[in-house]
């Protein structure tokens, strides 16, 4: 069996920033135009590299927040106060600037409509970013697949893509939020961390074999994966992507 190679070489290329979108107080989406982009699959990421005048470089990975069907490649960046790269991307970058990146990268944490479902996405904080790509792709090409997102956020103000998630819910995706630190007095959705009880309500039963994707900080991802396995879900049906510190 030959190794499955993804077409296209992985070379660094310069993208042009065409727009910057404020998502929350701390998160900003970068809308990029790339000359040499051959498409991507929802869930993949890019590596971004910054170079200072004296040659100093810093590199970080960002999930692609846009679907393959979208016109531009979008990244969503959460600003870490003591970060080295994120404050530059959220505070300094302007339309017209160039951003060096390589991608798309990743063959494990991807979902294409041809894979079917049901599709269960569990997001911790900015772990929701690759799921926006998956849901946009689902809306464009996969609505026959039942799709559900459980998104855990500290506060309502930290919820990224809130309006868009509501539109996706109107399209038939099941979007559920849980707020862990603070919620409005009249909050009707879930409160508190995702615990086994909530997960049991939200997850399809194991015999329905949902495709499960979990993304967020390491602690969140591992707690979710462990609970699902204890509930009887096959480990092979669960895909995980751990993010570094994001402050969400």
């Amino acid at each position, binding site marked *: 069996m030959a190794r499955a190679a993804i077409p296209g070489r992985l070379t660094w290329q310069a993208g042009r920033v065409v727009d910057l979108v404020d998502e929350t107080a701390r998160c900003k989406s970068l809308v990029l135009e790339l000359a040499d982009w051959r498409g991507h699959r929802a869930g993949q990421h890019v590596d971004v590299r910054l170079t200072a005048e004296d040659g100093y470089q810093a590199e970080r990975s960002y999930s692609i927040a846009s679907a393959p069907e979208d016109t531009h490649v979008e990244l969503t960046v959460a600003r870490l106060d003591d970060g080295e790269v994120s404050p530059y991307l959220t505070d300094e970058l302007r339309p017209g600037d160039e951003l060096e990146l390589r991608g798309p990268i990743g063959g494990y944490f991807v979902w294409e409509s041809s894979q079917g479902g049901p599709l269960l996405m569990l997001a911790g904080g900015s772990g929701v970013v690759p799921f926006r790509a998956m849901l946009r792709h689902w809306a464009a090409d996969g609505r026959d697949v039942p799709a559900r997102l459980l998104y855990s956020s500290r506060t309502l103000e930290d919820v990224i893509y809130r309006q868009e998630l509501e539109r996706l819910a109107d399209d038939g995706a099941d979007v559920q939020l849980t707020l862990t630190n603070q919620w409005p007095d009249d909050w009707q959705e879930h409160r508190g961390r995702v615990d086994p009880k909530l997960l049991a309500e939200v997850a399809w039963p194991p015999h329905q074999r949902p495709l499960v994707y979990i993304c967020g900080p390491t602690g969140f991802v591992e707690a979710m994966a462990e609970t699902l396995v204890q509930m009887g879900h096959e480990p092979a049906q669960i895909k995980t992507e*751990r993010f570094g510190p994001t402050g969400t």
Partner: protein
Amino acid sequence: MDALDGNAIAGPLFEHFGEEMTTTVGTCAHCGTRSQIAELVVYTRAPGTVVRCRHCANVVMALVPIRGELRADSSAFRMEQAPDEP
């Protein structure tokens, strides 16, 4: 500092091996556990990147940038051919 997983080194691995590697399955030479590279435990904040088996925590791979070129030692992770894409 929390460890990440093999997704975090997908780019460097592609750079080194010339193709997408996160779905590549291999066996830990220390304990025999079989896993995809995406499932391994990855420490990126070090003089190099250290990759450990999720089951026994022994080092299965190390990626070290030597004079700007990435060297990879994956001798403790016995790779099989990657499965076909879905």
